[in-house]
């Protein structure tokens, strides 16, 4: 298992600078979250699906990856339908539960909005290689390399922690203490993992410094982190789609500012 496995794919979206992907997500999410109506979110979802198609993302694995989002969105919508603010005709009334015109509208808007925010986030992050992201954060956004590379190297340890955790679990069974007190055992195991983690972190820091990390010389970057037309287009698409969804809501009169 690795959190750091390079994301691999031939489509152009994989080569877009990760910083641009995140920069494109921001305005889109903000716009969709500003209003509580079904139309703006639907415009965003349809636009997103169109953009994914244009970007060449049609593979089965992509649908599998976003499956949780498709499952979670209706659940969120259902609870809003049952508990959301009541208005208009009442269809069902069961104690606190009620289904009304108003709660149905809120439910639909919720489904669409969860999809509108989560789909692009899942899809774009699935195509981001952590190493490229670190390069982008340090070279494009000029975040301190000490911080960015430290976090990147630390991420690699997560795979080792998973292995450690399994060994700790087996060892507890072998020592005769795995029959009862599951909660206490898990806590105790978490502390043991923390001790191992600190030790691994220390070793990694030594190994990094032995390779001159955080030294006096200005650092160079072996991998360029280009920021060109593709990146500008990506950000423009995100921004345009966000604005389009807001404009649609305003034009159709469904705009429902979240803070009112």
């Amino acid at each position: 298992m690795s959190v750091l496995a390079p994301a691999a794919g031939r489509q152009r979206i994989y080569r877009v600078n990760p910083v641009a992907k995140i920069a494109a997500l921001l305005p889109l999410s903000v716009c969709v979250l500003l209003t509580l109506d079904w139309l703006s979110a639907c415009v965003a979802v349809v636009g997103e699906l169109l953009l994914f198609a244009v970007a060449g993302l049609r593979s089965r694995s992509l649908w599998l990856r976003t499956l949780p989002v498709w499952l979670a969105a209706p659940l969120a919508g259902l609870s809003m339908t049952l508990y959301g603010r009541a208005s208009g005709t009442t269809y069902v009334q069961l104690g606190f539960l009620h289904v009304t015109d108003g709660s149905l509208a809120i439910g639909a808007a919720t489904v669409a909005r969860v999809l509108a925010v989560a789909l692009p986030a899942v899809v774009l992050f699935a195509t981001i290689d952590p190493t490229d992201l670190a390069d982008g954060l340090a070279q494009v956004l000029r975040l301190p390399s000490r911080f960015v590379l430290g976090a990147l190297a630390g991420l690699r340890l997560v795979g080792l922690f998973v292995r450690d955790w399994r060994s700790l679990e087996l060892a507890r069974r072998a020592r005769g203490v795995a029959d009862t007190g599951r909660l206490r055992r898990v806590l105790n195991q978490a502390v043991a993992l923390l001790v191992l983690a600190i030790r691994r972190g220390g070793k990694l820091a030594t190994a990094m410094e032995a390779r001159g990390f955080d030294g006096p010389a200005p650092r160079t970057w072996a991998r360029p982190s280009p920021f060109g037309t593709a990146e500008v287009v990506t950000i423009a698409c995100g921004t345009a789609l966000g604005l389009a969804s807001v404009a649609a809501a305003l034009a159709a009169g469904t705009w429902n500012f979240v803070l009112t």
Partner: protein
Amino acid sequence: MAAEGWGWRHGGRRAWALRDLDLVVEPGERVLLLGASGAGKSTLLHALAGVLGVEEAGEETGRLTLDGQSPRGARGRAGLVLQDPDSQVILARVGDDVAFGCENLGVPREEIWRRVPEALDAVGLALPLDHPTERLSGGQQQRLALAGVLAMRPGLLLLDEPTANLDPEGVREVVDAVGRVLERTGATLVVVEHRVSTWLPLVDRVVVVGPGGVVADGSPEDVLRREGARLAAGGIWVPGHPPAVPVRTGSAASTEALLTASGLSIGRGTSVVRDGLDLVLPAGSSVALTGPNGAGKSTLALTLAGLLPPLAGQVGAEPSLAAGRGSSPHRWRSRELVERVGVVFQEPEHQFLTSTVRAELEVGLRATGRYDDAGRDRVDALLERLRLTALGRANPFTLSGGEKRRLSVATALATSPPLLVLDEPTFGQDALTWAELVRLLAELLAEGRTILSVTHDQAYVAALADLELVLAPGSPFASRSPR
């Protein structure tokens, strides 16, 4: 490199790790640095690489220089490869990992990508630059670390037991790679290692250090002739001075089986690593499970020990082991298991549960409700037998490598299980701990216990095993008798 009266004391310790060291190494020399465990060898290498004090603070005396400068200011002049392969991989792709050191030194991009393939070629790693580093074997990881250091073009190569955690194949790979690198670059070498024979063909000078400075210094033949016996007594593996072990006379093993496996498929999780395995573990015997890395030896041992469920087929415990429980060890409850099978893990730290050595030995007895007066006596006797009495109140995590190993064996013995399963018990151990462990296991065998060991260590197999089972990928078991 030059040291004048140099010394270092780790923060919070009273004793000096190393002091009064006077040593000069000329460019191009290849030095093997020897000394008993705790003689401060690693401390010196860390200081030369300019990374002393990264993990913990400390206090320094005297002068240590590299090309006349302080090593901290001369980063990149000395390249350090450490013992643990896992913690030296820094980035996710092979090429990026090698480039990391160059980037830190501010080498221009074009120059970096000229150096990276060169360095990979020098260490014999013929892999694409975007090969994921997580798919490397231990020997490959160490060669990658060497390539990363090499790309920085250091004048001095520092190796801190780089082969201690590798199987024989990995050791060969790394030693060959270092030899090739020295030939090409003419770099100076300082290597720390417990096993002298590993590096003897490559070095032209041997330096022995103790806590009070240099003890012996000269050509390998000279130093080993004069100091060989003393070094061996200090835990170093010196050719011609093998650790004394009791000769195991014939096999006391009965022909009766203790544990059998038939049509066994093994794996962690759901994917099968090996299938169709059949074997018999005779009661009272010592069986060694050997074979290359990745063949599934540890997985098999843990499955036989009832920790991992068989994915197909079965593991069958004979009544003498099952003692009234069912015949499938993985269905036993945890506290039933601890009375029947003692498991010693490769990493002792994975199996420690408490904050003192004594409490660690009580765990199994308490779990089985046997921590009474007899249980207390048993713990005392075990502490005595494994020379841990003085450490009874110490925290298991603060012990030395050898002490941790002894404690992990002791914890498995506390509930006196008839079967003992050990995973790489001699990995990274010095000769003293090794001999001690072999003596102890020989005693246990004489008591009639059964031992299954996963190991790469042929000396261990020769000293202890009645039967060696070789597990190689894609072929059925080959068994042979080591004697």
